[in-house]
């Protein structure tokens, strides 16, 4: 038992489950079977069965969790690369994503409050359209719970990438740039992965939208926090 409740075992379990998840995801290509989802389905039952509480698991996996911060910083480079390769009207894209960002935070917060959700749920929902590392940092910072936000971001991504292309078709979107931006803004990396299947233009703009959406959400969150 002692050997299980250690840093090396928990890190091995975490990386191993995630790796298994990537293999299953590649084999099945079912968008619900994200590596992260599969890793959870292995780790959570394991902890419940062995009676190890989350606090000690989290402490043992700190080396991985610490990398969340550097992952956010590394996105600065990704954003730079996308912006420098950008052709087309950046202002219209910024206007579109900015509005989407305001609508995204505003609507999810108001709807959740309307349905009487608990305050911690509302704060954890606010950054749901943003790429995971940024969403987790924002959630932690503005009174949410990163664990909850992680689930909400994943639901948002899976839902948007599943229904997005169909939805954009029925509301009459013909522009490839618009489709890519919309998928990336609403459903981050999962939306962008789906956009990439539709076309290279859509995929590239989805990637750009992820970065800008993350940046704008971070800048706008302080103004929304009064609402939570």
């Amino acid at each position, binding site marked *: 038992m002692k050997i299980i409740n250690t840093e090396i075992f928990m890190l091995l379990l975490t990386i191993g489950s995630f790796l298994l998840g990537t293999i299953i995801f590649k084999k099945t290509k079912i968008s619900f079977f994200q590596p992260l989802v599969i890793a*959870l389905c292995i780790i959570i039952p394991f902890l419940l069965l062995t009676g190890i509480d989350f606090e000690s698991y989290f402490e043992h996996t700190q080396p991985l969790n610490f990398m969340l911060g550097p992952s956010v*910083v590394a996105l600065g480079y990704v*954003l730079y690369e996308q912006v420098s390769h950008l052709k087309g009207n950046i202002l219209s894209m910024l206007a579109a994503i900015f509005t989407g960002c305001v609508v995204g935070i505003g609507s999810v917060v108001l709807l959740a409050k309307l349905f009487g959700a608990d305050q911690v749920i509302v704060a954890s929902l606010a950054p749901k359209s943003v790429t995971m590392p940024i969403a987790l940092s924002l959630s932690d910072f503005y009174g949410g*719970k990163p664990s909850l936000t992680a689930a909400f971001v*994943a639901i948002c991504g899976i*839902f948007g990438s599943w229904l997005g292309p169909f939805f954009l078709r029925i509301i009459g979107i*013909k522009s490839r740039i618009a489709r890519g931006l919309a998928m990336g803004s609403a459903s981050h990396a999962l939306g962008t992965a789906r956009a990439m299947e539709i076309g290279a233009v859509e995929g590239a703009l989805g990637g750009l939208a992820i970065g800008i959406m993350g940046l704008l959400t971070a800048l706008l969150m302080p103004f929304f926090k009064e609402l939570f």
Partner: protein
Amino acid sequence: MIKGLFWIFLFYFLGELISLFIGGFMPGSIIGMILLFLSLLFKLLNPAQVKNTATTISKNMAVFFVPATVGLMTYFSLLKNNFWAIIVSIFVSTLLVMAVVAWIQQRFEFKNEIDTNDNQAIEQ
């Protein structure tokens, strides 16, 4: 790899430092991201210095989300009590974001197309 890690950690630290000075207006990691982006944009830092490390991290970062996400196991009852509020608000809000972004972008493009057509007509 190590050089890139140094720069990323440095920008992370600077971000945390600034976050402290501005009274925690924004998380340090996000300030670090903005600083790195601006430094690259204004050519204060050569992109080659961070390229490999930054791309490696961002391609593999999903594994770093696992520990925080496992924390869900402590929120089962909270999730159960708020289930419909969560699902409905996420679904509606996601579709709203998609619609708003796509509509605005498409309007701009079609407006530009009409403008350029007009200009061409005038030139002719």
